[in-house]
C-alpha cells in the first residue's frame, strides 16, 4: 500500500507546474497533514490542465462571463446599454449567473411528439463532447494528454459538433427545429472543408501537429506567416460558432431558435452556452495555430504560469473579436452563406495551402 502511494507520488512530483512565486508557501506545507498531497495533485500538470487552465476554471469563467461581455460590448457599439439591471452598479456582471439560476429551477418540458430519450440526452451529451477537445489543448506548456496527433484529434472532435446539433433538431421533432437542422447541415458542409484546409496548411508549414512543438516553431507568429489561412480559419470559426453574421441555423426572426426551439429549463441553459463553448475551443485552437500559443514575454515569479497567462489573454482577444462581428454585420442568407463557403473561402483556403507549400520550399532551400 505504502509502495503504491510512493510510486504514485513519484509520478505526480516528477511532473509539477513550477511557480517560483508560491514555492516558499509550498515548502511550509508538510507541517499540515494531507494538504501537501492535495496541493501536489492540484499542481500535477495533467490535473492542472483539467481543473484550472484550459479546463474547468478558465472554461467556467469563459462560459459565465463571455455572454455578458459579448452583450455588453455589442450593446455599447450599437449605442444601447446591454445587461444592466442585475447588480446595476457593476453593470450587470452576474447576468448569466442569474439566468442559469432561473434555467435550473424551470421545468424541462418534453412535448408529446419528441423522441423522449434522445431529446433529454443530447443536450448533456453534446455539452460533454464539446468539452473533450480541451484535453488536447495546451495552455503554455501544460497539457492533459500530449500526443503528436493532437491537432488532428481536436479537429475531428470539432467536426463532431454539428452531429449533435443535428441530433438535437431530430429529437425535437418540430418543423422549426427541422428547418434549422437542415440549415446547420448545409452550413456544416460549407465551412468545414476550407476550415480543415486552413489547419492542414498550418500543419504543413510547421511540419508537426504537436501543439507544444507548434508554439516553439512560431518565432514569427503564424498569422504573419500565412495570413490567408488565418483569415479562412477565422471566418470558418465564426461560421462554426453560429453567431450573428452566420446565425443561419438558429435565426431568431424566422425559426424562433432553430434546432433548440423546443427546449426549456436546464436543457436550454446547456444548449445556450454550447456556442460559447465552441467559440472558446476554436479561439484556443486559433491561438495555438496562428498566435504562438502561450509564448510571450516571461513574467517574473509566475514561472510556467506566464505561458498560461499569455494563452488565456490571446484566446480572450480572439474570442472578443469573434463576438464583436455581431455588432457590425447583418445576418447572411442561407444561399449567401453557402456561396461564401463554397467559392471565396475555398479559393482562399487553396491559396493559403499554396502559400504554406511555397514557404516550406523556400525554407528548405
Amino acid at each position, binding site marked *: 500500500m505504502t509502495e503504491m502511494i510512493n510510486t504514485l507520488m513519484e509520478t505526480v512530483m516528477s511532473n509539477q507546474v513550477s511557480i517560483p512565486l508560491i514555492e516558499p508557501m509550498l515548502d511550509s506545507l508538510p507541517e499540515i497533514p494531507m494538504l501537501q498531497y492535495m496541493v501536489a495533485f492540484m499542481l500535477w500538470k495533467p490535473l492542472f490542465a483539467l481543473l484550472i487552465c484550459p479546463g474547468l476554471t478558465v472554461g467556467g469563467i469563459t462560459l459565465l462571463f463571455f455572454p455578458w461581455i459579448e452583450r455588453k*460590448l*455589442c450593446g*455599447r*457599439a*450599437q*449605442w*444601447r*446599454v446591454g445587461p*444592466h439591471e442585475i447588480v*446595476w452598479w457593476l453593470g450587470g456582471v452576474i447576468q448569466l449567473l442569474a439566468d442559469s439560476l432561473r434555467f435550473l429551477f424551470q421545468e424541462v418540458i418534453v412535448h408529446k411528439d419528441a423522441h423522449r430519450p434522445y431529446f433529454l440526452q443530447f443536450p448533456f451529451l453534446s455539452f460533454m463532447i464539446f468539452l473533450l477537445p480541451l484535453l488536447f489543448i495546451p495552455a503554455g506548456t501544460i497539457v492533459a494528454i500530449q500526443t503528436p496527433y493532437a491537432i488532428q484529434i481536436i479537429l475531428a472532435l470539432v467536426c463532431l459538433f454539428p452531429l449533435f446539433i443535428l441530433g438535437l433538431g431530430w429529437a425535437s421533432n418540430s418543423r422549426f427545429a427541422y428547418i434549422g437542422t437542415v440549415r446547420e447541415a448545409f452550413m456544416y458542409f460549407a465551412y468545414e472543408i476550407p476550415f480543415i484546409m486552413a489547419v492542414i496548411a498550418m500543419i504543413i508549414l510547421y511540419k508537426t501537429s504537436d501543439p507544444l512543438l507548434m508554439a516553439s516553431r512560431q518565432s514569427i507568429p503564424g498569422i504573419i506567416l500565412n495570413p490567408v489561412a488565418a483569415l479562412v480559419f477565422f471566418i470558418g470559426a465564426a461560421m462554426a460558432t453560429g453567431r450573428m453574421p452566420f446565425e443561419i441555423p438558429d435565426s431568431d426572426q424566422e425559426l424562433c431558435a432553430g434546432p433548440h426551439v423546443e427546449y426549456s429549463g436546464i436543457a436550454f441553459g446547456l444548449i445556450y452556452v454550447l456556442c460559447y463553448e465552441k467559440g472558446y475551443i476554436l479561439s484556443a485552437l486559433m491561438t495555438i495555430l496562428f498566435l504562438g500559443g502561450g509564448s510571450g514575454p516571461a513574467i517574473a515569479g509566475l514561472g510556467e504560469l506566464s505561458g498560461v497567462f499569455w494563452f488565456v489573454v490571446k484566446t480572450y482577444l480572439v474570442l472578443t473579436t469573434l463576438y*464583436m*462581428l455581431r*455588432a*457590425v*454585420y447583418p445576418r447572411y442568407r442561407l444561399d449567401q452563406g453557402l456561396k461564401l463557403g463554397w467559392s471565396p473561402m475555398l479559393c482562399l483556403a487553396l491559396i493559403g495551402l499554396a502559400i504554406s507549400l511555397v514557404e516550406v520550399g523556400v525554407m528548405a532551400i
Partner: protein
Amino acid sequence: MKMKRMKKVVGPEYNLSEKIKTNVYAVGVAMQESVYPHTMTVFYPKERKKMPDNYRGFILFDPDKCISCFNCSFVCPANAIRMKEAPNKRYYPTVDYGRCIFCHFCIDSCSSGALKATKIHDVAYKDMDEMFTPTEEMIELPEITREDKKYVEYEIEEDDLHLKRTKGEDYLFVEVPQPKEIPMVSTCIDPDSCIGCRVCAEVCEHSAISASVEDGGTLRMKIDTDECTGCGLCVKECSMQILRLVKK
C-alpha cells in the same frame, strides 16, 4: 417588329479595395464605440429626463389670489374646469383630469395669477371618478414617491461634438412672470338704459352691487368700488351690456 429596348438594371461595381476599406472602417468604429460609446440612455425608474422649462403639467391653485372671475372655466376648451362653491361662499375652480387636455389656457387667462403650472405629469389614479380633482387637492402638490431623485440631460458640446451628461435636481414649479395686477372696477356707462333686472347684483360674489329706489320711483343699481374686485362677472351677465371694466 422592332422590339423596345429594355433598360438594364446594373448592380454596384465590384471594388475589392473599397470593400476591404469599408469593412475595416466598420469594425474600427464598432471597437471605438464599444470603448467610448455615445449612449443616450436614461435609466428610467432611477433617473428621468429633464423637463422643459415651460412644461404643462399638473395645475396648482392659490385660493388667496383667486377673485372668482370664472375666466378659467369659461375659456376651458375641454370643459374640464367647473366652479364649485366653497364654504366661504366663493366659487373656486375644480379640474377633471379625465377631460383636461393640458392646454393651460386657464393659467394664461387667469388675471390674478392664482393658477400655476407645475412639471408633474405622472399622477396615478385608481379610477375615472378619482380624476376629478376638488379644489382642496389642487392647493398643494400631490404626494410624490418615486425612485428618480435626479434628472439627466444630454447636451452636445459644440467644440468637439461630444455628448455631455449632466445630472441635477429638477424644480417642479414652472416659473412664469406673474401678471401685473391692474386694479379694475366695474362701472355702468349708461345708467338710463338699465332695466333693473338685478342680474348683476345676484351674480356678484362679493355683494358689491346693491339696488336702491330713487325719488322718482326709478331703480338704480349702485356699485361699491371698495368691495368690487374687478372680476367682470356682472359685465358678462348684464343683459343690456351697459357695464364696463375700467381702471380704478
